[in-house]
């Protein structure tokens, strides 16, 4: 579904991604694990068009999308839930959800998806007329995810959905991620909580200082000594 081939991405003169290659297949949950600043968010931003790769290719359903404008990529079915949620705090929950469907014109389908978001996140229905800035962190995460789903994405990019949330809420969010995946949405998940990410993922990549250093199925990586030492807090 998505193929990233040997991309290099820079912030000014600083190289953030060094020859990264990865692949995501239809229906999978793939996770990227790695320390702060390893380049995980940079990779998501490059896929969603916020950053341009200097070279290398991003292929989505066989077509090159590397370097395209973000709005064109959303239209093709990739939605990105950014780190820190980035909801529009000055607008209501409903307006945020409507903005998620900005490019769509099929009123009936939008309504259907709105209902689906309410089923996944009943909290949002209760707070529909409330300003997004008044929501709790967990509710804002739900809103950010609901907003992304309103574009009816085929591939959902999630950046640190557990950040700053209470453990119980993290569990809820991850259960919902699995539910979203079960309805046919492919997921690329960036997560610092490697234990949790590996527990729901099919496959995983380990990112270190802009490079992919390890790849495999979730089971393989969970039992890998190197991953245990560095990311799972094992001995």
């Amino acid at each position, binding site marked *: 579904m998505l193929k990233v081939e040997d991309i290099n991405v820079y912030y000014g003169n600083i190289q953030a991604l060094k020859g990264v290659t990865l692949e995501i297949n239809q229906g999978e949950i793939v996770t990227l694990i790695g320390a702060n600043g390893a380049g995980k968010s940079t990779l998501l931003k490059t896929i969603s068009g916020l950053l341009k790769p200097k070279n290398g290719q991003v292929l989505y359903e066989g077509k090159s999308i590397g370097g395209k404008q*973000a709005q064109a990529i959303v239209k093709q079915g990739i939605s990105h839930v950014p780190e820190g949620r980035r909801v529009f705090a*000055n607008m209501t929950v409903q307006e945020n959800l409507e*903005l998620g469907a900005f490019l769509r014109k099929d009123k009936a389908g939008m309504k259907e998806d709105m209902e689906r978001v309410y089923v996944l996140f009943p909290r949002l229905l209760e707070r529909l007329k409330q300003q997004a800035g008044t929501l709790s962190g967990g509710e804002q995460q739900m809103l950010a995810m609901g907003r992304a789903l309103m574009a009816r994405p085929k591939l959902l990019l999630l950046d640190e959905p557990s950040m700053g949330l209470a453990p119980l809420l993290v569990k809820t969010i991850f259960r919902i991620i699995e539910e979203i995946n079960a309805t046919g949405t492919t997921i690329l998940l960036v997560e610092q909580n490697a234990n949790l990410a590996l527990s729901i993922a099919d496959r995983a990549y380990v990112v270190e200082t802009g490079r992919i250093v390890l790849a495999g199925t979730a089971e393989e990586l969970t039992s890998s000594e190197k991953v245990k030492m560095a990311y799972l807090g094992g001995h």
Partner: protein
Amino acid sequence: MELFQQLVNGISLGSIYALIALGYTMVYGIVKLINFAHGDVFMVGAFIGFYSITVLDLSFFPALLISMAACAVFGVIIERIAYKPLRNATRIAALITAIGVSLMIENGMIFIRGAQLEAYPTNLLPSENIDIFGVSIKSQSLLILGVSLVLMMILQIIVHKTKIGKAMRAVSYDAEAAKLMGINVNNTISATFAIGSALAGAAGVIFGTYYIKIEPLMGVLPGLKAFVAAVLGGIGIIPGAMVGGLLLGLIEALVSAAGFSLWRDAAAFVVLILILIFLPQGLFGKNKREKV
């Protein structure tokens, strides 16, 4: 009674400030730029209105609409040529460019048609005196106030109910997140310039109708005062610009009424100094802390 008339005059003048201030505040809200050329768009609007009336023989409302449309296009051209290439430059570079654009428009206008004054025809709008509770008010003042208020209401509807309005609010809050929604940020910024400039064009025609005299440097002082009005209300906040403009007009009228009409212009800048010292976020602004 004298005071009441002064207040009505103040509100009429204030509504012109408010129309100009809206453009300042909308543009600042979305690209964080004080567009110092905005007062000159107001001047260009006044001239387009003038020529529509005198050359094309149009009445007030068609002239108003033509001026608004032409200024909208003019604003977008300014944005595309002068500001868009500086989107990622330092803010001071954009600010200096804005001052340069302002000087260019003023002197360009003088180059094209000379620096002489023109006078709007005085019979554009009915100018009877209407008696309200024994106070006589010029019907023009009321019409001008009415037109300004209608334009502001239309703006509110655009900003809150339409798709482009929602895109504008989203981009001004978080441009990167707006991109992830599929919003075209460049087009949204252009639309903001178009709407702000159209309001300035309308203000120009209204100003000419009310104050008669227009000339190529007429935008300087109202432009600066509208900037004060935008800061007074809280820069970047649309209702703030409306209230700030009306309030500034009232303050000027009261200063005049108190017998200090020569100090009227200074009053606006005293307000600016006081606001910057005591309430830098403006009347409607929240003291925002950057979230990490």
